[in-house]
C-alpha cells in the first residue's frame, strides 16, 4: 500500500514529469565511476556490488522530521542512560524494570566492562534507528535500534551530492534541507570525546561490505583510515604507526568492527583485524571508542521491548515513538501467545542481524513451524515475536520508466556529542522484490535518498 500523496510528493512529481528520466543513467554512471559500492559475501565469495539506487526519494516534511527528531533524541538519551546504568550501578535492574536474568543471559552484555568509565559519559556516539511508517494508523514505528556499528550514512550523502549535479531542477524548485555537514559533525563528535591524539576510523579492511563508507568518512572527516595492523597499544595508550617508523597517539577511534573482533586478547583470539590490548587502553580511559564496547546489550532485539519502559524510568517522559507490538518468548504468557499464533507473527532471532534470522510464521511449512516451536521452548531468551506491520510501500522507478511499489524502511542517523544531532536525511532501503518485506542491504535491498524539507515560511 502506498501512502496517500502529499502536496510535497505531488510537487516532486511535477518536477519529475518535466525532466528526462534517462538522465538517471548519467547518475548511475557517476556512481559506477566513483565505486559507490556495498559489497556482499555470498557462498564465501566476495562480490563487488553496486548498491542499487532508486531516484525517487522518500520525502519527509519539516513537521514530520521535527516529530521524528524529537522521538529519536528521546530514545537515544534513554538508551545511553541505560548503557551507563547497566555498566554502572544497574539501578534499572534493582528497581525491577527489566528482569536481571534477561540482561545477564545476553551474550551482548559484557560484565568484564562493568564500571568502565567512558569519555563524557557518551556510549551511543553514532546510531542508526530503523523505522517504518505503518499503513494502519499512519504512524512511525521503530523496528530496531542500531547502536554498535550502523552503516549506510555515506550512501545517501554521496548520492545527494551527485543528484544535485545531475538533477539540479529538484534542488532549485523544492526546499530540500542540505545534508553535507555530516562528516564535519562526525569530526566534531570525535574531537569532543577525544582523549588526546588524532582521530582514526578503524576498518576491517577492503573486503568489508561497507569499506567504501569507511574510506569516504575518513576522507571527509579528516580522520586517518586504519586497519588493526596500523595500530598498536603501548603502556595503555593507542598509537598509529607511521611510515617513517614513528608513532602518533590516537585519542578517538570510530571503529567499524564488532566487539568480538576488536581485541584478540580480550575477545576472539582468532581475530586478525583487531588491535591487541585496545580494551586495556579503553579501560584506562586513554582512548574514546565510538561506539563504546558492550553497546550490543542495548540494541539486543529482546531489550528493544523495554525501551519504552527505559524512557519512562530514566526520563520520566512518555515515549514519543512507538515500538512494534512485541512478545518476548522469555515471559511465559508471551511465549504461549507466540506458540499459539506463530502463523500470524514475525519471529526474530535476537542473535542475528542484517535481516537474517527473521521468519514470517505464515511462510513456514508445518514441519518448519514445529521445529521453530521446539527451538522457542528450548531457548526462549533467543526469540522475540512481533505483529506483522503493514508498512507503506514507496514508488520506485523501473528500468522501463514505470513506477512500481516496494516495501521501504528508513534508517535515521544520529551523532551524540555535546547534544544529539539527528541528521535531516536517512537511508531509505527498499525491497528489490515487490512481494518482499526484507529491505536489508546485506540481503540485496536497494536504497533511496531521503529528502527532509525546510520549514515553509
Amino acid at each position: 500500500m502506498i501512502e496517500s500523496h502529499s502536496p510535497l510528493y505531488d510537487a516532486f512529481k511535477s518536477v519529475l514529469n518535466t525532466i528526462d528520466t534517462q538522465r538517471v543513467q548519467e547518475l548511475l554512471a557517476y556512481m559506477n565511476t566513483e565505486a559507490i559500492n556495498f559489497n556482499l559475501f555470498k557462498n564465501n565469495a566476495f562480490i563487488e556490488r553496486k548498491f542499487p539506487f532508486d531516484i525517487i526519494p522518500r520525502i519527509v516534511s519539516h513537521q514530520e522530521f521535527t516529530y521524528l527528531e524529537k522521538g529519536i533524541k528521546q530514545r537515544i538519551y534513554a538508551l545511553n542512560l541505560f548503557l551507563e546504568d547497566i555498566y554502572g550501578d544497574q539501578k534499572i535492574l534493582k528497581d525491577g524494570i527489566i528482569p536481571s536474568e534477561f540482561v545477564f543471559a545476553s551474550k551482548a552484555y559484557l560484565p568484564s566492562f562493568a564500571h568502565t568509565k567512558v569519555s563524557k559519559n557518551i556510549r551511543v556516539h553514532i546510531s542508526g534507528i530503523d523505522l517504518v511508517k505503518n499503513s494502519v494508523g499512519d504512524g512511525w514505528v521503530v523496528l530496531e535500534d542500531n547502536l554498535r556499528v550502523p552503516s549506510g550514512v555515506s550512501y545517501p550523502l554521496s548520492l545527494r551530492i551527485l543528484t544535485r549535479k545531475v538533477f539540479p531542477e529538484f534542488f532549485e524548485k523544492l526546499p530540500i534541507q542540505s545534508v553535507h555537514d555530516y562528516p564535519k559533525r562526525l569530526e566534531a563528535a570525535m574531537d569532543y570525546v577525544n582523549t588526546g591524539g588524532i582521530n582514526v576510523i578503524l576498518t576491517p579492511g577492503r573486503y568489508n561490505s561497507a569499506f567504501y563508507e569507511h574510506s569516504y568518512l575518513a576522507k571527509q572527516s579528516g580522520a586517518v583510515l586504519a586497519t588493526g595492523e596500523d595500530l598498536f597499544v603501548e603502556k595503555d595508550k593507542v598509537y598509529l604507526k607511521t611510515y617513517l617508523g614513528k608513532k602518533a597517539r590516537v585519542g578517538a577511534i570510530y571503529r567499524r568492527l564488532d566487539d568480538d573482533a576488536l581485541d584478540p586478547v580480550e575477545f576472539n583470539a582468532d581475530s586478525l583485524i583487531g588491535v591487541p590490548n585496545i580494551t586495556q587502553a579503553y579501560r584506562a580511559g586513554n582512548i574514546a571508542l565510538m561506539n563504546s564496547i558492550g553497546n550490543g546489550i542495548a540494541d539486543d532485539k529482546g531489550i528493544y521491548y523495554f525501551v519504552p519502559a527505559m524512557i519512562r524510568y530514566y526520563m520520566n517522559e512518555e515515549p514519543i515513538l512507538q515500538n512494534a507490538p512485541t512478545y518476548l518468548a522469555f515471559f511465559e504468557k508471551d511465549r504461549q501467545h507466540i506458540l499459539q499464533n506463530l502463523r500470524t507473527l514475525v519471529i526474530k532471532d535476537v542473535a542475528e542481524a542484517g535481516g537474517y534470522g527473521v521468519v514470517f510464521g505464515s511462510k513456514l511449512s508445518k514441519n518448519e513451524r514445529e521445529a521453530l516451536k521446539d527451538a522457542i521452548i528450548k531457548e526462549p531468551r533467543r526469540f522475540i515475536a512481533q505483529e506483522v506491520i503493514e508498512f507503506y510501500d514507496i514508488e520506485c522507478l523501473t528500468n522501463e520508466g514505470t513506477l512500481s511499489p516496494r516495501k521501504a524502511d528508513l534508517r535515521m542517523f544520529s551523532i551524540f556529542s555535546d547534544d544529539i544531532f539527528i541528521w535531516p536525511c536517512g537511508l531509505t532501503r527498499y525491497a528489490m522484490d515487490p512481494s518482499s518485506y526484507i529491505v536489508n542491504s546485506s540481503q540485496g535491498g536497494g536504497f533511496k535518498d531521503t529528502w527532509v524539507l525546510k520549514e515553509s515560511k
Partner: protein
Amino acid sequence: MILISPQTAESLFWMGRYIQRAESMTRLIIALFDKIIDENFNEAKELYEKLGIALHYASSQAFLRKSVFELDFISLYYVINTARENAILTRSHLPNRMFSRINALYLKYQAAKEEPNVSIYWLESTLQELDAIWGNLELSLVEAKEAPLIELGKVVERMDLSIRLFDSIEAAVMDTEKLNVIADKIRPGHKKILLSSSQKAKALATINSVFGALITSHES
C-alpha cells in the same frame, strides 16, 4: 597534518608502480602489435621470454587479446586491476578525480574484456587516460606527503623495466638522480642510492629494495 601508515605507504607505492607498469605495457603492446603484423612475427614472443613468460599467438589480434586480457599476472587488465585495488585501499588519501579516473579505466577494461576483438585505437586511449591520471597527481597532490610515495613507485617501476626488459642499465642510471630526489622527500637525509652500471642483478636488487629501505616498520 596527514599521517600515513606503513601499509598505506606501501599501497601508494604499488599504485604508482602499477600505473607506470600499465603505461609501459601499453606502449610496449602497441609497438609489438605493429611489429607482428608484417615485420617480425616472433618479436613479442622473444620479448615476453625475457620476462619468463611463454607467449603463443597465431595472429596480431590473438597477441593483443592475450597480452591485454589473458596472461596471468601480466596482462594489461591484471595490471590495471591491481593499480585500482591499491587505489581503493588508499582512496582516502587520493584526489577524487584521480581515484575516479583509475576506477573508470578499470571499468572500461572490464567491459572490453567481453568484446571479441581488441581495438588498437581503443588501446591508444589508455595512454591518454594514464596521462590524465599522472596529471591529476601533479595537480592535486603536488605538496602532499602521498605524492613522493606514488612517484617513487613510478620511477622504480620504470628503472626496473629498463633493466629487465631492455637490458638498459644506462637508462636506469639516468633515473637514479630523480630517484634520489624523491627518496629525499620521503626521508630527508637518506643514504644516496647508487647503481652500478655493469651488474644487472645487483642493480635490480638495489632498485627493488629502495622502498623497504626508506620505509621503516615500526617496532613497538
